[in-house]
């Protein structure tokens, strides 16, 4: 038990004194996961909306693929991103393996199916005749899609939360493609793994507390928006 108390104490100490290294790791985590989430929102909302609104052969299969992708194991993503970015790999020329960019890439790959899946479900959940109603109001196809996405904005916030929550807490891919390089590609999760391995439980606990706090704060803000908009 002492171990936990000491850890929490240490965490507060690190937080209050604004420990330079911990602060750097936290900010990098936010920056990487935030960027990855933004990328996944862009790709995921577009793809999800297109799949939700169109009918094509093999659509069922694509939907299954997206749903499966929502549970993609980060280590598998890490493995494949590593292979792609490896010096002799198809994207090796980019020379971004073991950089924060590589982590962003891997996390975006993890978050995109989550965002796509939730978008798909939210758009499909809108009343079937709503599309026709919007078109009957004189909308172009583009206006129609934009209005539909706006109508689905509350469930789409859930996509943001799920996407961000998925990547900020992910460790497998980050450690594989980022390399956990001190002061460069070390994020909250990879640092926690390392400190635990070294037996520095107090720092590991401190990092975990910060991680949970960050995840909680981001979700609290989004929940606030979501609940304020929801009438009654």
């Amino acid at each position, binding site marked *: 038990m002492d171990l936990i108390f000491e850890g929490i104490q240490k965490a507060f100490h690190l937080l209050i004194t604004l420990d330079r290294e911990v602060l750097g790791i936290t900010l990098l985590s936010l920056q990487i996961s935030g960027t990855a989430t933004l990328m996944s929102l862009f790709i995921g909302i577009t793809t999800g909306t297109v799949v939700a609104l169109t009918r094509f052969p093999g659509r069922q299969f694509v939907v299954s693929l997206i749903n499966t992708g929502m549970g993609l194991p980060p280590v598998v993503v890490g493995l494949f991103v590593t292979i792609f970015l490896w010096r002799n790999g198809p994207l090796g020329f980019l020379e971004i393996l073991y950089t924060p960019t590589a982590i962003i890439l891997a996390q975006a790959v993890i978050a995109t199916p989550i965002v796509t899946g939730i978008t798909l479900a939210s758009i499909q959940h809108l*009343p079937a*005749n709503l599309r*026709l*109603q919007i078109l*009957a109001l004189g909308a*172009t196809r583009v206006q129609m899609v934009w209005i539909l996405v*706006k109508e689905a904005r509350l469930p789409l916030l859930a996509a943001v939360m799920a996407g961000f929550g998925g990547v900020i807490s992910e460790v497998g891919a980050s450690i594989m493609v980022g390399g956990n390089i001190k002061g460069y590609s070390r994020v909250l999760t990879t640092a926690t793994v390392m400190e635990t391995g070294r037996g520095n439980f107090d720092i590991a606990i401190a990092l975990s507390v910060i991680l949970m706090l960050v995840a909680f704060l981001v979700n609290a803000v989004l929940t606030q928006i979501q609940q304020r908009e929801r009438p009654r």
Partner: protein
Amino acid sequence: MMVETRSDILLKIEDLQVRRGGTTVLEIPSLAVFQGQVLSLIGPNGAGKSTLMLTLAGLLKPARGNLLFRGDPIADGGFTYRRHIAMVFQDPLLFDTTVFENVASGLKIRGMGRQEIGRRVPEYLERFGIGHLAKRSARKLSGGEAQRTSLARAFVTEPEIVFLDEPFSSLDPPTREVLMGDLERILRQTHTTAIASTHDQAEALRLADWLAVVNRGRIAQIGPVAEVMNRPADEFVAGFVGVETVLPGRVVRTSGGVITASIAEDREIEAVGQVEVGTEVLCCIRPESVTLSISPALSGTSARNVFSAAIRQMTPLGLFHRVRLDCGFDLVAYVTGQSLTELDLREGMPVVASFKATAVHVIPRREMTLT
């Protein structure tokens, strides 16, 4: 043919076929809608009313055929055409924002300026009696208020044709009654051409100048309301528009524009019409045309068709009582509450039923094709 050459045709379809999931759901050789006309599409559920409505609104692509607006075929995927129309569905389908923003949505889509929107929207909110709800969230409206918002959203764009797809069917009867009155008034005021579908005959009669009876993806009959009601083209239309007595028979005599048709158990009915002797016919008698009395002497009627009958069943029906009679054939009469009391009608009681030869509409029988 006269219909095809009228100069005020606003919307017209030619040789239309709509398919869904491999089967033909709509097949209409021609249909014309005139400027200022209120056309009601009536028919049972699943007859194809909504499909026809969506096709006419340019929202459903037909497998074959043309849709012409002011004589020109609909082009560019219907985009330009859709800016001339508006549609109200059975569900209000409001956006998750305020009533004001909902009503403004069609105008915003058209890129209308803030000032013009600020002028037009309140005007239409008032017209539909929802001015006080402008700032309320659309999610907090009653069914009637929501449908009013949806109607205001459609009319504010000042469409040339408004499509109303069973707009009142999910409302409770008192709300429906009031809203229908308002819609009727606004349609007359604005002279907007309207196409409204319903499976409620009373609703159709109240709003429409013209009636189109839709059945199994085809238009069974189209024409001015009185014509369709009183001259149903076939058995289905007759049954659907409320001619409750439809008697099959055969023409046995004709004389001076009056035909005599023999129906079940050597009873004969006289009717006005021009049908050859020997033709199989359907005799349609509207229930309100049938008069009941206690004895033939007291009937004091010039009616040619007088039958002694027994009352089999009486059903209250709002303003009327529906009386089922056995005259050797089935006959349905509507009797007012007052007559019911005066004649002291009871089930099982013998009465005299009469109706004029002009009240009988004779339809030469055609084989009903089952598809």
